[in-house]
């Protein structure tokens, strides 16, 4: 076979890109950095004994006592492992990446569910995003956005988008066509059908997608660490190069504890009816006003992300 020098064309292209649109790249970098830094500051600024009760309270409101207890214990364990700051840094990166991935992925999934052609075009692109080894685009990402949190966020986002797209598409395609037809028959706008019929009915699938987004984002923690994003990735990488199983395990454990927390929180947000204390509180408040408990129609919720 003749050798095709595909790689060098790409390299040239990247170099060209770097020269052509530095402003754009810098702007993206600046925005993402600002957001991530702000979030990191917010999370690492106050000491752990302020944040832990806050997080536990959030868990209580969203899901209930069980998760609140878990949150308390998990984050106490993390801080007793001396990994509080690193965990919060990681949380910031993961949150930013997951929110971007969801915000991009869900609409793409909706588009793919509506148009066969879109689905056919997206599919190989998603394969590409998920399987190109992150290391391959990590370096261009560093070229584009500089060392720090941004290439980590970018790489994480690229890797985490596909499940959001795929599972949104799957979920929307699975919605009973007769119900959609009924919505059409009542003159609903496609937007309304999407918001009030398709998304709520596809919610279990979409939430599975968001769960995967979060999981994949967390699984990229180490890679983000290699690009200078700090956080638990740094801990794990150092531990591994030192063959320090103990430190590596502790770092990994912190990631997992964070993963379980985020998983449960998102699952809680998606649950209908809501089981958290927030709902109970709201119901209790509205009860005297309307004199009939629980008559307040639960708003048919769009999924947590937009």
């Amino acid at each position, binding site marked *: 076979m003749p050798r095709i020098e595909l790689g060098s064309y790409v390299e040239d292209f990247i170099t060209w890109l770097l020269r052509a649109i530095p402003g754009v790249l810098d702007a993206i970098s600046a925005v993402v950095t600002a957001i991530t830094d702000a979030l990191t500051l917010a999370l690492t600024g106050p000491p752990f004994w302020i944040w832990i009760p806050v997080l536990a309270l959030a868990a209580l409101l969203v899901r209930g006592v069980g998760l609140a207890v878990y949150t308390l214990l998990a984050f106490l364990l993390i801080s007793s492992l001396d990994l509080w700051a690193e965990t919060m840094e990681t949380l910031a990166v993961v949150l930013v990446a997951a929110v971007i991935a969801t915000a991009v992925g869900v609409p793409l999934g909706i588009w793919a569910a509506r148009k066969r052609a879109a689905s056919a075009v997206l599919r190989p692109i998603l394969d590409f995003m998920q399987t190109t080894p992150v290391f391959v685009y990590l370096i261009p990402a560093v070229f584009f956005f500089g060392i720090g949190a941004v290439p980590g966020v970018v790489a994480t986002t690229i890797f985490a988008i596909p499940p959001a797209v795929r599972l949104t598409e799957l979920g929307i395609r699975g919605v*009973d066509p*007769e*119900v959609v*037809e*009924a*919505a*059409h*028959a*009542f*003159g*609903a*706008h496609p937007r*309304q059908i999407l918001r*009030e*019929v398709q998304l*709520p*009915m596809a*919610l279990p699938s979409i939430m599975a997608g968001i769960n995967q987004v979060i999981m994949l984002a967390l699984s990229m923690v180490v890679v983000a660490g290699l690009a200078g994003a700090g956080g638990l990735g740094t801990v794990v990488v150092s531990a591994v190069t030192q063959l320090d199983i103990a430190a590596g395990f502790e770092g990994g454990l912190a990631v997992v504890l964070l993963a379980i927390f985020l998983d449960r929180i998102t699952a809680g947000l998606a649950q*209908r009816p809501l089981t958290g204390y927030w709902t109970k509180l709201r119901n209790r408040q509205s009860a005297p006003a309307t004199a009939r408990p*629980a*008559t307040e*129609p*639960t708003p*048919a919720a769009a999924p947590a992300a937009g």
Partner: protein
Amino acid sequence: MSAVSSTGSEAAMIRCQGLTKVFGSGPAATEALELSGRGVGRTEIQERTGVTLAVHDVSFDVRPGELFVVMGLSGSGKSTLVRLLNRLIEPSGGTIEIDGRALGGLDDAELRELRNRRMSMVFQHFALLPHRTVRQNAEYGLQIRGGAEADRREKGEWALEQVGLADRAEALPGELSGGMQQRVGLARALASDTDVLLMDEPYSALDPLIRRDMQALLLRLQRELNKTVVFITHDLNEAMLLGDRILLLKDGRLVQVGTGPEILAAPADDYVADFVADVDRTRVLTAADVIHQPRLTAHLDDNPADLLRRLGEAESTAAYVLDDEGRVLGVVHDDWLALAQATRTREITRESLTDDYLTTGADRPLIDILQQVGRHPVPLAVVDDERKLLGVVPRAAVLAALATPSRS
């Protein structure tokens, strides 16, 4: 066969011309249409081309305020037809006009507007939103329309009360029985309060009592609010009771359209005759359908002897006596006439008349007059609002009308 009324087309609320729908596409669909044009049957088309000809060349008008019933065999294209009426499926051919506007010419926004404000639909398989409560389902059309929360609430509440589900407003559809779910679908359409209602077997899962209420409700809505209703049903009695006119489909083609009694009296073919054989004639047929000219009526100035002779000829024992306008005054019996003849009385006196007779209106169903027929020597009198005698209902005529032409 065309059912387009000859009276001005501007009067039609729904007007279909040559409506056709083929499930399938490409050359096979074209071939199917062509075959059908040559009179090839649907099953054969299905086998030859693989596509289904669901509706073929159907034309009809529905007048504003009309309750238009569609009937036909299972699979004859009824659901497809109503779905074509609000363009949930695009026709393969033909045109539809709603209130004078061609449906095909509407853009998306106009179509939505039409569906939302002018028409609402009850689905054969209910098609409720499973994640919303009964109340939210009932309010769905209104919610899409936008507008005040309170108003929506009120109308939803009203619709749920109409269908008898106000106490289950907070349940989810999955927690309801089949008939309850169907009524939620009904409430959803009612709450929308549109001119046109498309109803695909809306009462199929209802028990007789609730069904009766729902029928009454529909008739009331139609009468009071002048709703135009296209109503699919498999219940002949329901069709006869509700339908101003009935359209019969067979294999996607229109077979007959007309009022219930018209169809009963003159079925277009054996299919229709067979189709309507099971109808409960006591409820469908009215006094008008069994009316007979009275064999003999008398006036006050009639000669009793003369009358007695005519009575004998007619093998009767009594006769209605009418005034000059044809109003019923009473009944004269042969025994009095014989007496009068004996006493040479020249005229029938008012005092001689008895009131042992019964009257009814021409539009009363037979079920209501069965008790009254044959109670008296004179047959039941059918009178108009001014008590003018229109005719009589002999017992034998009732029995003959009720009997079905025997099936092979």
